[in-house]
């Protein structure tokens, strides 16, 4: 099945802005993060179809996943 992944800020560096990925049913957000070689502790906001999600959530066909880095500086 296919999902669209949108990356924000520095997550785009050496990766992509938007990409359609083919994944196996049951794939979690965490598995995609790991596949993209993004450190879990650097993930901030996760959105699935515009709603707040988390790393353990399983994706469904045609889902849109957005990943923002954790930003904490001042």
């Amino acid at each position, binding site marked *: 099945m296919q999902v669209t992944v949108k990356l*924000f*800020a*520095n997550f*785009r560096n050496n990766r992509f802005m938007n990409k359609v990925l083919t994944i196996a049913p049951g794939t979690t957000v965490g598995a995609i993060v790991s596949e993209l070689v993004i450190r879990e*502790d*650097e993930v*901030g*906001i996760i*959105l699935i179809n*515009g709603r*707040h999600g988390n790393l353990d959530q399983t994706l469904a066909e045609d889902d849109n996943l957005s990943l*923002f*880095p*954790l*930003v*904490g*500086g*001042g």
Partner: protein
Amino acid sequence: MTTFLFFPLSGEDDFVQEIAAFLQKNADGNLLPFYVQQEAGQRFSLHIAEVEEIALDHDLLPARYQRNRAMISIQQQLSLLRSKVAVFGCGGLGGYIIEELARLGIGRIAVVDPDVFEEHNLNRQLLCTRELLGKKKVDAAAHRIAAINPAVKIQTFDFAFGQDNSAEILNGVTVAADGLDNIPIRLELAESCKDLNIPLVHGAIAGWFGQVAVQYPGENILQHLYAGKKTAHGVEKRLGNPSFTPAAIASLEVAEIVKILLGTKPSLPRRYLAMDLYYMEFTEVFFPDG
């Protein structure tokens, strides 16, 4: 009878009228030049803030604010004078926030930071100059505010915010401004603001990126952004911070603070704004459940 915040002259309306008459006589139309404000302070033994309060209450605008008046009325300027904003962190974000609040004429500003300036602050922190390396950030903030606008009353706290001192620091605060650089303390601040029903304007930065959000009383947006994170810092530890990102995010925070203080339409309820200055992209994220 008017209630004065800085100048509680209950039953002394004659004295207030005398001061107001002096100000009106020496004003330029409805603009009050600073030297008149200063002279009134000396003549009547009043703080500049007290003179400012009487002036605004009598429809006189201190001349320094004349370029604001199409946006901020004299009555609104009086509201800003009677407000208190606490700024948490006097570094990248905090330096610009303090600068903008002082120029706006926020009557009371509390600044909180345990640190002294270090060389690596020079690339971005407005308050940091070579001469101030090794000096307390809150002292630099107090000097800067006094140099810009002597109508502002300043409170400095040279220790880190925590649950043990939250009641003291947040006492009388109208809005709290987040210029912190640490996630657990942000979450503590969000909790304290929630307990005390104080709106919190959040900002955070990392490299080319930043975010802004407002947590109104009863909302939990900082929890959405940060709860469960195991690290004290985000990607800024790797990316660093340049000069322009704190200036941009701090200005967005101050725009939100002013609207809250003036009671005008809030722009960021239940959503946060992510800003990417590299791609010049602004993304809104909604939290329908607050």
